């Protein structure tokens, strides 16, 4: 019997790609402990998400589906995930380290009496299941052991390949769960409107720092560059703290989002430790900054010491031309 349960992350009826990275960790654990893995979905009207998950080689796709779970709230979702973990006989419960996973998984761990490994970036080599996770803004890599019979893991998805579809049709199994008395209610969701790719799923990210003067200038400079590359736009903590035109969920860094795109272009970003923690695993890093001593150059594959205001229009045009 498989004893690893991966809880799917989804939003507005669509599966989040990070779930497939969590499946990769499940397979890595299964390779050490034997057995396979199951998938779990919690929500209201999530049949489509469950169906999409049938082709990834899970033993079963367990589903808690009902109006009580339509909006995410930590308490009822904890009860639902515990019900799924019981049904799956799970020793490991894994999900993504997005804001929902970070909110939910520790509660699940407390309810299961399980140790909780946050932000797992990989397993240590060897037969034993030992988890690696960053601390101190990524300046220290810890190898940790869970000493409990059950373990809950949140996955830093940018550090794992996404699992490929394997074909097959895992059976969908409906699981009953009672959300219980809930001392919280959903009020509203104010979505950040964007036509661009999501930061955590983008192949190319362009990030602006405080050198871009103010909020309107930030957008005037970054939008054309992002358009030229089909890129998502990120920002530093200083930017989202200072300029209200730039929303908080664009922050890349230790306390914001952690990303690892194929191409990361940092414009007028100095490269504070907490920012580097969020992007230094990107495959190719470009830094443009007029200060030659900016720490960002120490992690950049290609550095250009130049004034962003003069350089960006030229770069935007020439990238457009180069991409044809």
């Amino acid at each position, binding site marked *: 019997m498989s004893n690893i349960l991966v809880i799917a992350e989804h*939003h507005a009826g669509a599966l989040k790609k990070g779930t497939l990275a969590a499946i990769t960790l499940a397979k890595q654990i299964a390779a050490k402990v034997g057995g396979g893995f199951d998938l779990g979905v919690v929500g209201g009207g999530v049949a489509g998400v469950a169906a999409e998950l049938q082709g990834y080689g899970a033993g079963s796709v367990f589903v808690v589906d009902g109006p009580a779970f339509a909006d995410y*709230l*930590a*308490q009822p979702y904890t009860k639902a995930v515990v019900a799924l973990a019981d049904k799956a006989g799970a020793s490991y419960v894994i999900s993504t380290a*997005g*804001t929902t996973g*970070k*909110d939910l998984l520790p*509660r699940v*761990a*407390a309810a299961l009496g399980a*140790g*909780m*490994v*946050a932000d797992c970036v990989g397993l*240590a080599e060897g037969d034993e299941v030992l988890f690696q996770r960053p*601390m*101190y*803004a990524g*300046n*220290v*890599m*810890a*190898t*940790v*052991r869970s*000493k*409990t019979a059950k373990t809950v893991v949140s996955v830093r998805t940018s550090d794992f390949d996404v699992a490929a579809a394997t074909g097959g049709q895992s059976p969908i199994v409906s699981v009953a769960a009672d959300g219980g008395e809930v*001392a*919280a*209610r959903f009020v*509203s*969701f*104010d979505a950040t409107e964007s036509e661009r790719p999501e930061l955590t799923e983008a192949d190319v990210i362009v990030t602006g720092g405080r050198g871009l003067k103010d909020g309107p200038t930030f957008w005037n400079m970054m939008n054309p560059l992002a358009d030229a590359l089909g890129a998502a736009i990120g920002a530093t*903590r200083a930017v989202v*703290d200072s300029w209200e035109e730039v929303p*908080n*969920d664009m922050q890349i860094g230790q*306390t914001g989002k952690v990303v690892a795109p194929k*191409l990361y272009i940092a414009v007028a970003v100095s490269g504070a430790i*907490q920012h580097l923690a969020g992007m*230094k695993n990107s*495959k*190719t*890093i*470009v830094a443009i900054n007029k200060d030659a001593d900016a720490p960002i*150059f*120490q*992690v950049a*594959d*290609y*550095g*250009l*010491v*130049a004034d962003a205001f003069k*350089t960006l229009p030229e*770069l935007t045009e*020439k*990238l457009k031309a*180069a991409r044809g």
Partner: protein
Amino acid sequence: MKVLVAFKRVIDPDARIKLTADGSAVNTESVEYKANPFCENALEAALQIAEEHDAEVVIVTIGGDDTDQTIRAGLAMGAARAIRVEVEDQDLDSDLAARILAAVYKEEGDVDLFILGKQAVDGDNNQVGQLLAEYLGLPQACFASAITIDEDASEAVVTREVDGGLETIAITLPGVITADLRLNTPRYAKLPDIMKARRKTIAVMDLDDLGVDDTALKIEVVRLEEPPKRQAGALVESVDELVAKLKNEARVL
């Protein structure tokens, strides 16, 4: 109203972290400690609530008497008093920290709100508030960027910073809130307040007092390492050279 605030010290987040030679721990020789930034946001939020709702704000810290300096800094910001839970070994996991805080909550009684930082920037775990809420069976509102408490202090409406936007939820009090950085700008303590803080009470309790007899860690650190350093690449002279390298060398266009 009574508001508890978890208040932790961390190694100066702007300092370079060094490991001991055997990789078993972070080298704490001659490091400076500061209050965890998110804990300062939590305390500021509590103080603002107190100004509107006549609440008592109580700092809760876990650690030895070397943490008193950090606690005094919090008292100087305006907390009424502090509780320090004496533990010898400060390498707790999030779970034990949460169980200790849960015990303080029960011991203290009549608590309306427990506010914590969303994470401590040493372990970067982002768990303790959530664990605490589950252990106490309370609702939670994590990653708060705005908090409004209603007049009779029965409900908190909290805006949360989540992927893709801002979510607003309401929790029935008592409850647990964790603070994000944009919740507020923590105040600086004024000199008279620093003097006044010296006379405020720090009540010291130990795990026996709190009835926390299970001190087993659920997560054990096996070893610490410095992650491999990323090699700095080369400077390019012009936009043309940059675009050519991205296209022909990195092949990312």
